[in-house]
């Protein structure tokens, strides 16, 4: 296994330009989607099989009464304990030598357990290929020494790409700097390898509590209770699994907070 790679998204540097969102579509040749009215600049409403990077726009008054417009580029977290990977019955979802999580499109059978198993609502089903889709961490690029398309495009280095250990150290310093500048709620999300899901290989610096960004405070692996068990049982298990899928998918559409 090579040294783990990561993406560190520092929302304090995000200007919400959506270069990442478009660069991702361009490189990965993802298709057009008809947007929905969100009431803000955000489009689309959630991750889909055609949208792997998604910029969120959150209007939130500061404690001073002044307005803050929290901007955050969200993406697959490439969790160290990845719900999707653990739920995948065919082994199509695998961990690369760099620690990222990818879906082998040739062996994915379209069962969608992964869709319901993602605590962040990231994985989506593509009807035409009959497979699950999500951010690949630009697998083709990183295996050739290129950074992911989103990180490369990002004008303000809000999305940083590199070795995980180095990025975590940088991120920790950054939190301290921001706290010194008066951002009292500045915090890392998913940087800690001993924290939830064994740490995220796409981790974040947030300026407010995770819930403000529609992120779960302490995400868990739902399949440990539902999907994996169902796999082990026989007969009616498939129906149970489908029920779980629908339930989680609906919640996923609510903004990714399972």
């Amino acid at each position, binding site marked *: 296994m090579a040294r783990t790679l990561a993406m560190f998204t520092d929302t304090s540097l995000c200007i919400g330009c959506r270069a990442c969102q478009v660069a991702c579509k361009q490189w990965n040749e993802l298709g057009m989607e008809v947007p929905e009215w969100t009431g803000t600049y955000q489009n689309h409403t959630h991750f889909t099989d055609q949208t792997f990077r998604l910029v969120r726009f959150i209007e939130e008054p500061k404690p001073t009464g002044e307005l803050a417009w929290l901007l955050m580029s969200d993406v697959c977290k490439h969790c160290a304990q990845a719900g999707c990977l653990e739920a995948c019955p065919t082994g199509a979802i695998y961990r690369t030598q760099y620690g990222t999580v*990818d879906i082998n499109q040739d062996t994915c059978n379209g069962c969608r357990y992964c869709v319901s198993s993602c605590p962040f609502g990231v994985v989506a089903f593509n009807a035409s290929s009959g497979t699950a889709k999500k951010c690949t961490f630009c697998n083709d690029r990183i295996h050739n020494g290129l950074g992911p398309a989103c990180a490369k495009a990002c004008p303000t280095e809000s999305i940083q*790409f590199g070795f995980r250990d180095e990025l975590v150290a940088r991120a920790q310093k950054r939190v301290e700097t921001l706290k010194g500048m008066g951002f009292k709620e500045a915090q890392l999300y998913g940087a800690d390898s001993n924290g939830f899901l064994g740490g995220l290989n796409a981790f974040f610096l947030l300026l407010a509590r995770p819930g403000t960004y529609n992120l779960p405070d302490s995400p868990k692996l739902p399949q440990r209770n539902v999907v994996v068990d169902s796999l082990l049982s026989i007969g009616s298990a498939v129906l149970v699994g489908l029920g779980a899928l629908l339930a989680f998918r609906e919640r996923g559409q609510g903004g990714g907070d399972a």
Partner: protein
Amino acid sequence: MSLSRRDFLKFGSATAAGVAVGSRGLDLAPVEAAATTLKIKEAKAFHGVCPYCAVGCAQLIYTKDNRIIDIEGDPDTPHTLGRLCPKGAATIQLSNNPLRPTKALYRAPGSDTWEEKPLEWMWDEIAKRVKAVRDATFVEVEKSKDGKDVVVNRTEGLANLGSACIDNEECYLLTKLMRTLGVVYLEHQARV
């Protein structure tokens, strides 16, 4: 120019070694081997400049068989460091876009449709119309305020608008031609 080290990030040397190992088939899973095929690896790269705003982000345009397959920021660019905005990142769709007309089109007076026309016909017909308007509206000499005859060589029957979205050389040719034809209504979107 082909894809070279210029586009690699610092970690490139580390993984370049990893790729080399993989390509010798030592211990990469088949899926990872597949992942090592990079669509721009065999592509030609050209120096581009983003056609949107005036920051002037230099781009690398990757092509295969006379088709653009990828456009990214050029990381060597001192004033942009290879970054792009969403518009710059979408530049490829200015070229690869089914909505682009690829034929010259003509709409006759009163018609409700376009007709395709050969380019030569278009250029000839436009030139004839320019000459006709110029000749009909041309003012060669005019009295100035103090009553003197001044050569003004001007037509007020023709106007040209644009463009801040074309190249310098194109602007130069346009100005040179229009001013010599006598065109005074000459503008671009400097104020838009």
